[in-house]
């Protein structure tokens, strides 16, 4: 059975019935890093130094040394990243079971709200509304908050700082608790520089997404892109951080396996028929 599934998967991939969507920003020195008060410890931006380029330093080969933080570019947050998750078992990049790195994703489209309100906070009501349209959020899935923030290619607009700090959308406290406690999600992913909103320092508790997600062993993904290419449900995310000893996170390549649009259309057709049938059944009961 499993063999058949895997064979079917590679066959579908080769045939284009399943697409691979890259959710990763390019690691580049120009990509901004998180801003903290300057007296605090700072996350290194991505930097790269040429080792040789077919020259006297190495006549036949080109390669580089690079440096960055565990939290630079598109990256994964492990539970140990936050103080609330520091005593949990298997809480770092080297000990998290590998099976957690492949999981289904629910994509919550907040792009319209984020376009008009940079400080938009995702609420429980918003999530319940999403569930009414797309079904209950399955346990063990990634919640990916689509805001189209990644389309802000100018770093100044992406960071969106003013004298009061950063203004980027994120989840509200109650929404995080709902996802953790009532939906048992695997983790929360965002397009902005953090899983929490830019102003989340002022929420209770500060940075609720970090606090509750990591406090209960869940993960984070941030600086994602291309979330607009994912269906609300049905995508499978592959997000495996580097196996850093005691790592709190890691830059990584995040991929989503997505049924091709044709396949989705067929599925929708089937879905419609099914729900029409259901409605009919309900009506009959009444």
């Amino acid at each position, binding site marked *: 059975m499993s063999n058949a599934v895997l064979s079917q998967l590679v066959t579908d991939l080769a045939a284009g019935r399943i697409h691979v969507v890259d959710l990763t920003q390019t690691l580049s020195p*120009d990509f901004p890093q998180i*801003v903290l008060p300057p007296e605090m*410890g*700072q996350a290194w*931006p991505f*930097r790269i*130094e040429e080792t040789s380029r077919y020259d006297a330093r190495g006549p036949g080969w080109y390669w580089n040394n690079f440096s960055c933080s565990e939290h630079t570019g598109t990256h994964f947050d492990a539970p140990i990243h936050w103080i609330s998750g520091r005593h949990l078992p298997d809480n770092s990049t080297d000990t998290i079971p590998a099976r957690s790195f492949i999981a289904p994703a629910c994509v919550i489209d907040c792009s319209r709200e984020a376009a008009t309100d940079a400080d938009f906070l995702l609420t429980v009501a918003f999530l319940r509304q999403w569930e009414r349209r797309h079904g209950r959020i399955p346990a063990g899935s990634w919640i990916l908050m689509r805001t189209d923030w990644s389309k802000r290619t100018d*770093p*100044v607009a992406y960071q969106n700082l003013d004298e009061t700090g950063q203004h980027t959308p994120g989840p509200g406290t109650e929404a995080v608790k709902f996802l953790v406690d009532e939906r048992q999600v695997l983790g929360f992913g965002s397009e902005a520089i953090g899983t929490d909103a830019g102003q989340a320092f002022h929420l209770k508790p500060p940075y609720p997404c970090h606090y509750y997600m990591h406090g209960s062993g869940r993960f984070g993904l941030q600086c994602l892109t291309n979330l607009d290419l994912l269906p609300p449900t049905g995508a499978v995310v592959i997000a495996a951080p580097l196996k850093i000893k005691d790592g709190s996170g890691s830059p990584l390549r995040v991929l989503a396996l997505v049924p091709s649009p044709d396949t989705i259309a067929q599925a929708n057709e089937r879905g419609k028929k099914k729900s029409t049938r259901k409605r009919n059944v309900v009506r009959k009961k009444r």
Partner: protein
Amino acid sequence: MTRPLTRPPRKNPILRTRVPNLPPGSRSRVTLGLTAAAARGRLELQTCRDCGTVQYPPREACRVCLSQRLEWKVQNGTGELLSETTLHHSNELFYRERLPWRLGMVRLDCGPVVVAHLHGDCVRPPSRVCIHANIDRAGQAALVAMPEKDTPNMADDRQLREMTCDPKFRKVLITDAKSPVGQSLVEAIVKAGADLVWAGYAEPWKKPPGFERLSSLPQVSLVPLDLTDSRAVKNLAGEIGGRVDILINTADHHRNYGINAREGIEVARAEMDINYFGLLRLAQEFAPAMRARGADGQSSAVAWVNLLSIFALSNFPPHGTYSASKAAALSLAQCLRAEFAPAGVRVINVFPGPIDDEWNQALPPPQIAPSRVAAEILEALRGGAEDVFPGDVAEDWMARWRDNPKVLERELAAMR
């Protein structure tokens, strides 16, 4: 009266850029004493401790009493112009390319008679002049006779401009224009008549107060530049490197910790990355083109300025890791100076005392205003110095360091 400089015509691209030739540059060990003083913008002459004779040129012994107890003493340089000569021929390549060249013989009020380069506004002898010691293109002390009182446009004198690095009609890169010193410097250099000022900035999403107004100055062109990013430095050098006449490296990472005041090496590493490796990256990418343009007409490449710190001379323990990064930068700047020497490009090292900014907030006054640092950098470019110590604290430390570095080390260790 000096005719004011006019904007040089655009370069004719079919003519070969002249290769830099230097004035005669070899000096005996004892004569280097003159250069050491000129490096600080001073005229010092040997004075005999036994008979009081002031002598020039420098020698091993007093020319009057043969005593070897000679001491370099600051002179004010006033004297009388006895005679003048205009060279129309020279076997020295440097002067041959710059003829005619005016020289004068001056009797200093302190005694000796010297031969000096003669500023165009010095009137016919006999007349009063003032001798200055400038670092010339060979990096050695050159005596310049200036009019006793300032004259209009005197900085534009053709001969003097060969010994200064005046930003007028030159193109200047200021690597970090966001910092308080950077902002002051952009304004000062624009006011000094620079043709173009490239104002570098890193992390565009952080906008410090005051930075926006720089972009309203018509001479200013904002350029993204982060000295920790090798590719960014290379890219900018590729774009503008062949046009930079003066590079002023104001980029500075300053935190105030010793060894045990902060866990880990992150702060020290960030300091080294900007203060030391940043200078190295800049020098690797920008220096080659500047070296090639040491004699590129009226507005040639002339100077490279490093904003160091007086803490580079001796470690200030409360800012211990910062001091170490600045000491590393000073050492590298000496290498840069040596490598620039054949091109006639002057490397100016600036050693301010604590600057009045947020990282020196907790230090007791006096602290030096950023605008004063900018003014002293400008003065060094217009004059002949290569080592500048702006502010009372810097002057005081420098004097104590020259007097006895070990005593200064103990004094600084006692400061908390």
